[in-house]
Protein backbone atom coordinates (compact mmCIF):
# COMPACT_ATOMS: atom_id res chain seq x y z
CA UNK A 1 0.00 0.00 0.00
CA UNK A 2 1.91 3.03 -1.23
CA UNK A 3 -0.51 5.64 0.02
CA UNK A 4 -0.30 6.96 3.57
CA UNK A 5 -3.06 8.59 5.57
CA UNK A 6 -2.95 11.89 7.46
CA UNK A 7 -3.95 11.13 11.05
CA UNK A 8 -5.58 14.54 11.45
CA UNK A 9 -7.91 14.66 8.46
CA UNK A 10 -7.78 10.97 7.39
CA UNK A 11 -7.08 11.89 3.76
CA UNK A 12 -4.96 9.61 1.61
CA UNK A 13 -1.62 11.32 0.96
CA UNK A 14 0.98 10.60 -1.69
CA UNK A 15 3.87 12.71 -0.39
CA UNK A 16 5.29 13.11 3.13
CA UNK A 17 3.13 16.00 4.28
CA UNK A 18 -0.61 16.65 4.28
CA UNK A 19 -1.22 19.72 2.11
CA UNK A 20 -4.35 20.56 4.08
CA UNK A 21 -3.13 20.12 7.68
CA UNK A 22 0.58 20.72 7.02
CA UNK A 23 0.99 17.66 9.22
CA UNK A 24 3.54 14.96 8.63
CA UNK A 25 1.90 12.64 11.14
CA UNK A 26 1.01 10.01 8.59
CA UNK A 27 -0.20 6.45 9.10
CA UNK A 28 1.20 3.75 6.85
CA UNK A 29 -1.33 1.18 7.98
CA UNK A 30 -4.95 2.01 7.38
CA UNK A 31 -8.15 0.27 6.35
CA UNK A 32 -11.48 1.13 4.81
CA UNK A 33 -11.93 3.73 2.09
CA UNK A 34 -14.45 6.47 1.40
CA UNK A 35 -14.19 8.47 -1.80
CA UNK A 36 -16.16 11.67 -1.42
CA UNK A 37 -17.05 13.16 -4.80
CA UNK A 38 -19.76 15.70 -3.94
CA UNK A 39 -19.35 16.73 -0.29
CA UNK A 40 -22.19 19.29 -0.49
CA UNK A 41 -24.75 16.63 -1.41
CA UNK A 42 -23.28 13.49 0.14
CA UNK A 43 -24.96 12.25 3.32
CA UNK A 44 -21.97 9.98 3.94
CA UNK A 45 -19.70 13.04 3.84
CA UNK A 46 -22.03 14.94 6.18
CA UNK A 47 -22.07 12.07 8.62
CA UNK A 48 -18.26 12.05 8.60
CA UNK A 49 -18.00 15.87 8.80
CA UNK A 50 -16.14 15.94 5.49
CA UNK A 51 -16.41 19.06 3.33
CA UNK A 52 -13.62 18.41 0.88
CA UNK A 53 -13.90 16.01 -2.07
CA UNK A 54 -11.10 13.49 -1.60
CA UNK A 55 -10.21 9.93 -0.62
CA UNK A 56 -10.39 9.10 3.10
CA UNK A 57 -9.42 6.12 5.21
CA UNK A 58 -11.89 4.86 7.81
CA UNK A 59 -9.32 3.58 10.29
CA UNK A 60 -5.65 4.19 10.87
CA UNK A 61 -3.15 2.33 12.97
Amino acid at each position, binding site marked *: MAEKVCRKCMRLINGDTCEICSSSDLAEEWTG*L*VVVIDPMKSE*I*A*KRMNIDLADKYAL*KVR
Partner: protein
Amino acid sequence: MFEEENNDDVNIFIVKTTVNQEKSVAKSMALVAKKEHLDVRAVLAPEELKGYVFVETPRSAVVDSLIQAVPHAKSMLKSPTKLSEIEHFLKPKPISVGITEG
Protein backbone atom coordinates in the same frame (compact mmCIF):
# COMPACT_ATOMS: atom_id res chain seq x y z
CA MET B 1 -27.55 9.47 17.15
CA PHE B 2 -29.72 10.99 14.42
CA GLU B 3 -30.02 14.70 13.95
CA GLU B 4 -33.42 16.32 13.44
CA GLU B 5 -33.08 15.99 9.71
CA ASN B 6 -34.06 12.56 8.44
CA ASN B 7 -31.80 11.47 5.61
CA ASP B 8 -33.06 7.95 5.32
CA ASP B 9 -34.40 8.58 1.82
CA VAL B 10 -30.85 8.77 0.53
CA ASN B 11 -30.17 5.96 -1.88
CA ILE B 12 -27.11 3.89 -1.22
CA PHE B 13 -26.68 1.11 -3.74
CA ILE B 14 -24.72 -2.05 -3.00
CA VAL B 15 -22.37 -3.28 -5.71
CA LYS B 16 -20.71 -6.69 -5.70
CA THR B 17 -17.02 -6.62 -6.52
CA THR B 18 -14.19 -9.07 -6.85
CA VAL B 19 -12.88 -9.78 -3.34
CA ASN B 20 -9.87 -7.63 -2.45
CA GLN B 21 -10.63 -5.20 -5.28
CA GLU B 22 -13.05 -3.11 -3.20
CA LYS B 23 -10.71 -0.13 -2.84
CA SER B 24 -9.62 -0.06 -6.45
CA VAL B 25 -13.25 -0.35 -7.55
CA ALA B 26 -14.20 2.59 -5.30
CA LYS B 27 -11.38 4.73 -6.70
CA SER B 28 -12.15 3.80 -10.32
CA MET B 29 -15.84 4.50 -9.80
CA ALA B 30 -15.00 7.98 -8.53
CA LEU B 31 -12.78 8.65 -11.55
CA VAL B 32 -15.47 7.48 -13.98
CA ALA B 33 -18.12 9.51 -12.18
CA LYS B 34 -16.05 12.67 -12.47
CA LYS B 35 -15.08 12.06 -16.09
CA GLU B 36 -18.61 11.21 -17.22
CA HIS B 37 -20.23 13.82 -14.94
CA LEU B 38 -22.37 11.20 -13.23
CA ASP B 39 -24.20 12.26 -10.06
CA VAL B 40 -22.30 10.12 -7.57
CA ARG B 41 -21.89 11.70 -4.15
CA ALA B 42 -19.60 9.16 -2.48
CA VAL B 43 -18.32 5.60 -2.69
CA LEU B 44 -17.64 3.55 0.43
CA ALA B 45 -15.48 0.44 0.76
CA PRO B 46 -15.50 -0.74 4.39
CA GLU B 47 -12.79 -3.20 5.34
CA GLU B 48 -15.25 -5.39 7.21
CA LEU B 49 -17.28 -6.24 4.15
CA LYS B 50 -15.38 -8.22 1.55
CA GLY B 51 -16.62 -8.12 -2.01
CA TYR B 52 -18.94 -5.12 -1.75
CA VAL B 53 -18.85 -1.35 -2.15
CA PHE B 54 -21.60 1.20 -1.45
CA VAL B 55 -22.45 3.90 -3.97
CA GLU B 56 -24.32 7.03 -2.83
CA THR B 57 -26.32 8.37 -5.74
CA PRO B 58 -29.97 9.30 -6.33
CA ARG B 59 -30.23 7.13 -9.46
CA SER B 60 -29.66 3.42 -9.97
CA ALA B 61 -28.95 4.01 -13.68
CA VAL B 62 -25.76 5.75 -12.60
CA VAL B 63 -24.70 2.58 -10.81
CA ASP B 64 -25.34 0.53 -13.96
CA SER B 65 -23.03 2.87 -15.90
CA LEU B 66 -20.33 2.52 -13.26
CA ILE B 67 -20.53 -1.28 -13.31
CA GLN B 68 -20.15 -1.27 -17.10
CA ALA B 69 -17.14 1.05 -16.97
CA VAL B 70 -15.22 -0.30 -13.96
CA PRO B 71 -13.40 -3.65 -13.97
CA HIS B 72 -14.12 -5.88 -10.94
CA ALA B 73 -17.45 -4.12 -10.31
CA LYS B 74 -19.79 -7.02 -10.98
CA SER B 75 -23.45 -6.37 -10.23
CA MET B 76 -25.85 -4.24 -8.23
CA LEU B 77 -28.07 -5.70 -5.53
CA LYS B 78 -31.76 -5.06 -6.24
CA SER B 79 -32.61 -3.20 -3.08
CA PRO B 80 -30.68 -0.11 -2.07
CA THR B 81 -29.77 0.30 1.56
CA LYS B 82 -30.13 3.25 3.91
CA LEU B 83 -27.62 5.53 5.53
CA SER B 84 -28.71 4.27 8.94
CA GLU B 85 -27.70 0.75 7.96
CA ILE B 86 -24.17 1.63 6.93
CA GLU B 87 -23.33 4.49 9.26
CA HIS B 88 -21.64 2.18 11.76
CA PHE B 89 -18.90 1.77 9.13
CA LEU B 90 -18.36 5.54 9.17
CA LYS B 91 -17.59 5.98 12.84
CA PRO B 92 -13.87 6.46 13.23
CA LYS B 93 -12.33 4.00 15.63
CA PRO B 94 -8.59 3.53 15.86
CA ILE B 95 -7.26 0.06 15.24
CA SER B 96 -5.98 -1.20 18.57
CA VAL B 97 -2.24 -0.89 18.73
CA GLY B 98 0.01 -3.53 20.19
CA ILE B 99 3.25 -1.68 19.61
CA THR B 100 5.23 -0.22 22.51
CA GLU B 101 7.26 2.90 22.00
CA GLY B 102 10.95 2.36 21.65
